[in-house]
């Protein structure tokens, strides 16, 4: 039991810090640059992202391990995972609109964006490749969600300051954001010795 829980903890730390998807694997950059302009949107996106990530990781684990592995059709995983995520996001969009309009107006706009994010596809694929158990898959999904939220929040807090700073004209906007991201990525390299799996 102790080894189990340490493994789960290690997975969460690994996915969120040492192998942060944005800063070490360079995935999901599109949303990362698009949503990190304001702290408020960054927070909303982070929360929605983590929730969607965990649920889609769980759903794809079930389909992959209970249906696709026994039938020996694992080569279909990319297409099936995309389908699962898209369908789940669409369904949750509809349900949220009815059940809690308040939450829908706050987070609904991010849902459609999420379905096209590559981290959300990468997590089930890595889960399948590494043959994680159900709990481990959940932990991995949670960790990567938290990692993405962390990246967004760090970036948003810096970019809000950059907005008013005196940046040389050619670097204004996106170029500066990329430079800052590379700096944070360098800083995250320092965490790489923290945990090894």
């Amino acid at each position, binding site marked *: 039991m102790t080894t189990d829980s340490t493994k789960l903890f290690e997975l969460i730390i690994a996915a969120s810090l040492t192998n942060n998807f944005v800063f070490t694997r360079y995935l999901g950059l599109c949303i990362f640059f698009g949503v990190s302009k304001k702290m408020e949107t960054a927070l909303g996106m982070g929360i929605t992202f983590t929730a969607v990530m965990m649920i889609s990781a769980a759903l794809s684990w079930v*389909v992959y391990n209970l*249906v*696709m592995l026994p*039938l*020996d*059709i*694992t*080569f*279909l*995983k*990319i297409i*099936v995972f995309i*389908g*699962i995520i898209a*369908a789940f996001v*669409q*369904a949750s969009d*509809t*349900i949220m*609109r*009815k*059940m809690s*309009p308040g939450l829908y*107006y706050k987070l609904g706009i991010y849902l459609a964006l999420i379905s096209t994010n590559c981290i959300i596809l990468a997590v089930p*694929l890595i889960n*399948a*490749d590494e043959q994680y158990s159900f709990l481990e898959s959940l932990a991995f999904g949670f960790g990567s969600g938290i990692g993405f939220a962390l990246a967004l929040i760090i970036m948003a807090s810096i970019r809000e300051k950059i907005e*008013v*700073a*005196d940046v040389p004209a050619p670097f204004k906007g996106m170029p500066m954001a990329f430079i800052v991201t590379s700096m944070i990525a360098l800083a995250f390299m320092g965490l790489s010795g923290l945990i090894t799996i």
Partner: protein
Amino acid sequence: MHELQRLVLDVVRLIHGLDISNLLLPYVGVGGGIEAHEHVDLVHTLKYTLIFLVGVSAIFGFGLALTAQKFAVKIDPRVEKVKEVLAHAHCGACGYAGCDQYAEAVVNNPEVSPSLCTPGGALCAEAVAFITGKKAEIKEPIFARIMCQGNWDKSSKKFRYEGVQDCRAAVLAGGGDKSCLYGCLGYGTCARVCPFDALSMAEDHLPFVDITKCTGCRKCEAACPKKVIEVLPASKQVLVACHSKDKGVDTRKNCEVGCIACGICVKVCPFDAPKVERNLSRIDINKCRVCGLCVPRCPTKAIEDFIPKRSKAEVTDKCIGCQICMKVCPVNAATGEKKKKHHIDHSRCIGCGICTAKCPVQAIEGTFNATDVFCLAAAKKQNAAS
């Protein structure tokens, strides 16, 4: 032709002869790892693939259809239509959080007025009124007016500011670098918040309002830390463009174009519109008739006339020779004998429009207010007739 047919038959025979299921088919995983199966039963794989894909898509399809039906939210189709005609600046001028909220309120609540969208203007108000079945109130357009003419050449500074180039930041440093506490700082915060690109910073570090783009959403008014911007009705085009409440001497020291509260405008105005209070003259926009008499008389040129060029008055053949225009003209430009057509001396006329407004038979045209005066008179006549 025969040869081609034979070739095709050959190829078909060749394919038949091949036993694909005995081939070693590589199996490529996502991570780049290749797992080779010794034997792949192609028929089986294909069968399961088809069944699985059809099954998964059927489940997703039916599931989504079910949720869509079960959790359907009824939206008034009018809300979408209203949303389309609104300005989509999300400026909050209507008093709601955003355009979506206003669209919902205006459709569902019969007491919400359809003409609250200031950026959309009269056209949008009419469209919303048409969709919701309400009556649009015609509102005069409003524009942002910069109540300061003290650019960096004409006004003095008390220190050199080299911080963040934003008025909101500059004002933190001892109220800004300008000697005048009430003037425009000129770091362009208003131009950056304007959602319609109507404000731009001119060369002389004063904002310029493009009234063809300005919608009167009041975002700049809220953003300006010096409260230099006022949003006023479009027709009120003569304004004291100064907010300085310093004593006349101090104002003059700080700025060449500040109001020194000399009171000349109060004396000149035939309608009692300007009033000097706490060392500052202010024109009461309800009393002002935009005649522009005060503009050339102001010793510091603090009064701004937004009519670019005032056209001169012209007497038409309708004139009955009543001499009223001669009595009201502040510059004695009107001349003529009784019962004969009068004449207006263009070298004297300043285009104030007072005679146009006072003429009992609407015989004077050419001034800026002529169309308004004629429309009003026609409406009055119609009212009297009915």
